[in-house]
């Protein structure tokens, strides 16, 4: 079986990396050390992992989040990563399925545990976690994301505290747009950082449209989010929508 490689494609795109980031709507984003794309917004290429990686590398070779947002995408992603493809990213995370997840939670976690060690973080929505103890097998790689206002749980620091009590090694993925969706003053987002600063591993960065979908970060949100982002200077920021 031939090993998929993205290095050539990525190399072709290297010249565009810096301009892409410099084109960010905010200098806070363009000067951040570790920023990259989620493949979640690249819906037209879903399942084409080689293509998704190359497209992500066109924005940044520093970080990436490979998103298997529906359960049926996960086996293909695992197969792709098991081929040990050459990729330029310094930081690699995987977004675990949040849609179409099966009933066998333990089996789902076992599949995620098989992800190779180059995957540094596995981002999970708390509303897909029922039996918290089975998730402990992911150890420090487990990163729990705060939810938007459409969900019933995982929106506030108090709600996340229950998850973290059961999973002492788990980290926090702060989705700032979700935090704003729940509380436009961002007081809730600040409370999450106040309470779980030591757990922060990862930031999701975008704006949301009226229906709660991720859209490019607006200049207004970039300004609004600045004080939170300045508390997250040491962790990777993942763009959940194109730069523009």
């Amino acid at each position, binding site marked *: 079986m031939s090993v998929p490689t993205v290095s050539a494609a990525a190399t072709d795109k290297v010249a565009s990396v810096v301009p892409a980031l410099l084109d960010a709507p905010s200098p806070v984003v363009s000067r951040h*050390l570790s920023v990259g794309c989620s493949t979640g917004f690249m819906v037209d290429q879903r399942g084409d992992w080689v293509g998704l990686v190359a497209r992500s590398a066109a924005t940044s070779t520093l970080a990436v989040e490979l998103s298997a947002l529906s359960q049926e995408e996960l086996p293909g992603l695992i197969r792709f990563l098991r081929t040990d493809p050459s990729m330029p990213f310094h930081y690699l995370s995987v977004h675990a399925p949040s849609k179409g997840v099966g009933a066998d939670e333990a089996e789902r976690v076992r599949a995620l545990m098989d992800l190779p060690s180059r995957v540094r973080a596995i981002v999970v929505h708390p509303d897909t976690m029922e039996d918290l103890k089975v998730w402990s097998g992911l150890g420090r790689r487990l990163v729990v994301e705060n939810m938007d206002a459409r969900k019933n749980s995982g929106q506030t620091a108090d709600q996340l505290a229950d998850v973290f009590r059961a999973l002492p090694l788990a980290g926090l993925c702060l989705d700032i747009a979700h935090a704003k969706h729940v509380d436009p003053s961002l007081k809730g987002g600040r409370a999450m950082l106040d309470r779980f600063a*030591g757990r922060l*591993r990862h930031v999701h960065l975008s704006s949301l449209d009226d229906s709660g979908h991720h859209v490019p970060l607006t200049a207004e949100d970039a300004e609004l989010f600045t004080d939170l982002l300045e508390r997250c200077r040491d962790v990777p920021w993942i763009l959940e929508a194109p730069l523009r």
Partner: protein
Amino acid sequence: MDTRSPAALSNQAGALERFLKSNGPQGQHLLDARTHTAQRQAVVHAQFAEEALPSDTSVVLFGSWARQELTEGSDDDWAVLVDGTAEDRTDVVGVVELARRHLGDGDRKPGSQGIFGEAISGDELVAKVGLDEDTNTNLTRRALLLLESVEVAGSVHARCRRRVLERYLNYGVKDFRPPRFLLNDIVRYWRTVGVDFEGKHRDTGGDDPKWVERNAKLRTARKVLFAGGLVPILQCHLLAKPDMPDYLDQQLSRPPTDRLAAAFEHYGAIDEGVRFFGAYDRWMELMRDQQARAELAALRFENREASSLFAEIRQIGEALDQALIALLFDTPLSQVARKYAVL
């Protein structure tokens, strides 16, 4: 507080405890290790209390003893420090034998590379800086005397450390600039450790049984040690030349985690500091866990990627990197770090 003010640089003692108390619940393993270190140091002090040492010698401990990170699995990296020459000194041989009786039992014996477990001449540390006669051993001893050493018997340790410091500071230092000579040598030591790590891998034909342990320590304790030396040297840009020796002496008398806790606090990198010490606390927890230590010791270069323990330590190391990079390049310290820490 104005971070450009030299007054802000004082009060490193107990900085880690203060940082952890003010900023979060994490850090219990670091604090427990400090308590354990203090208890063991008291025992060792008592063992040596009845012994008469020559007036120009001290028994000095390095490594986790000096970092206040002692665990049950730590080595006793000791040396007899002589404020002068150690050659042809039968009385010094006697102190070495005495130290061997009190330190380094069983698995705690100092490493096998000849750095520790014998007499060290303060004169050589001062005289042989740079060029061929500054061997790896000499460089390592000199850097570690500055960065992580503590006296358990005798009274010349502080004087020898000051002599070494002044070797760097008595020449070419400018007001309100980091002392380049010292900066270059501390950076050289850190890079040498990294290069020698590869040399050991080669010398063992790619099967160094300690590769994983060495790699884990490079990612964690060694990096913290280097950063704990680098930051105070960079902070000298706030000082006039005559103030630097006392400042650096005072900084280096504290463990590197105090120096870094004070810096995270001083430069307002509180969240990053919380994550830094959270990650380092987890490393300390693993080092205090005999099962984890045994698992780490049994891992080899070939099978490390299959180990969730090694994967976690790599993540801990990356968290330390990220927080230190933020401290150096995303705070007011960046102005001096950009100018001096790279080129």
